[in-house]
């Protein structure tokens, strides 16, 4: 039996050591916002925050995440209000099918916190770890840039 702290709530699960964190989140915690794409760390769809850092939840076993604060896409919006980055993705049409979006939101939010005034080239470099087969990325880049501007305006 392990205990996972996901989005501030404790989830208990009985599982084998080999169970991937992404599968435990989906099957044992019933949080299906974390999407499972390639299962070998390439596509970025399953990215979640582990103690504030974006990590591939397909490359970590659920047993390893005990004691850590996990944030999934379900923990990003507050009381039904989208985060700034989510809102900007919505406005800029930064998603189509939405499969890659949870991973992009968690990766790029952590990255923006570290890089509050990014250039488009820097955004593209950071985004290179998240595959999107619909958008062609342009609108995602625009959304991330808009989120950076909006966060700055809010801070001023």
């Amino acid at each position, binding site marked *: 039996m392990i205990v996972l702290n996901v989005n501030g709530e404790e989830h208990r699960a009985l599982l*084998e*050591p*080999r169970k*991937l964190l992404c*599968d435990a989140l989906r099957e044992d915690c019933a949080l299906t916002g974390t999407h499972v794409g390639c*299962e*070998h*760390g390439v596509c*970025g769809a399953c*990215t979640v925050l582990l103690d504030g*850092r*974006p*990590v*591939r939840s*397909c*490359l*970590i*076993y659920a*047993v*390893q995440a005990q004691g850590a604060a996990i944030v999934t896409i379900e923990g990003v919006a507050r009381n039904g209000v989208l985060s700034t980055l989510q809102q900007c993705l919505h406005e800029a049409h930064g998603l189509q099918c939405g499969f890659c979006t949870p991973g992009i939101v968690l*990766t790029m939010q*952590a*990255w923006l916190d570290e890089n509050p005034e990014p250039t488009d080239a820097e955004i593209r*470099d*950071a985004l*290179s*770890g*998240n595959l999107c087969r619909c958008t062609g990325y342009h609108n995602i880049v625009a959304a991330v840039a808009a989120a950076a501007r909006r966060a700055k305006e809010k801070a001023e």
Partner: protein
Amino acid sequence: MKPARFTYEVPATLADALAALARRGGEAKIIAGGQSLAPMMNMRIAQPGHLIDINHVAELGQIRLADDHLVCGALMRHADLARHVLAWTHAPMLAYAAGTIGHYAIRQRGTLGGSLAHADPAAQLPLAAVALDARIEIASSGGRRVVPATEFFASIFTTVLEPHELIVALHVPVARLGEGWGFQLLTRRAGDFALALVGCTLARTGRRVDAVRLAVGGVGATPVRLDGAIEPGAGDAHWIERAARAVAAAVTIEANERISVEYRRELVETLAQRALTEAIESLT
């Protein structure tokens, strides 16, 4: 794609980790960041019967200056190494190289020791370790030993590590005052392993550029030092061109079905030229 069944333990101290390795070494694998091991396990290329998780061994995550060496703990994450002021001050090439690994999320989790132990011939940190005359500190329940990076990598994905041994730290001689450095790699897509990579450091004595160290990775089984092919000189464009050509002529390139030897040799020359130019420009 799910990993095969394994048992799992998570030691809290280095002594516990080494005792676990002594007990289960043959069938066990150490897991740290898991950015190479976990994909291999998901694909069942690797099927260890037991995992020893060292992520909670705090003493392996430290970085400190000891006399003329920077001691980087094996559990340092690439992202931390890439922004650490000690690393940038005393081993800037290593810090820069760490920041070029994979993608942003991969760098948050992947570790220095993991990259060294995995020994991918096209990986950044093994190349930097070889170029910088670094030494690898290894521990087992029987004691410790230190192996020069140039002798640590035995072949593709193969090192001199014994099954009951664990990498503790990388010892990097601190950069000399005024030393220049360059690091160049080419990847087909952002975050891919490099087709080839070159790291170098050099210094200026009077009007001559000397003390050149240069290593090439991604073209053979292990990173190799090739500064033996370079003669000291003026450090001007002509010297750089000649030095890069000499490196490309000296390097042994293993055949690869997808990329011709000729292309890789030209690539090594171009990357060496860029790395040397960068190093000269960074001389202070």
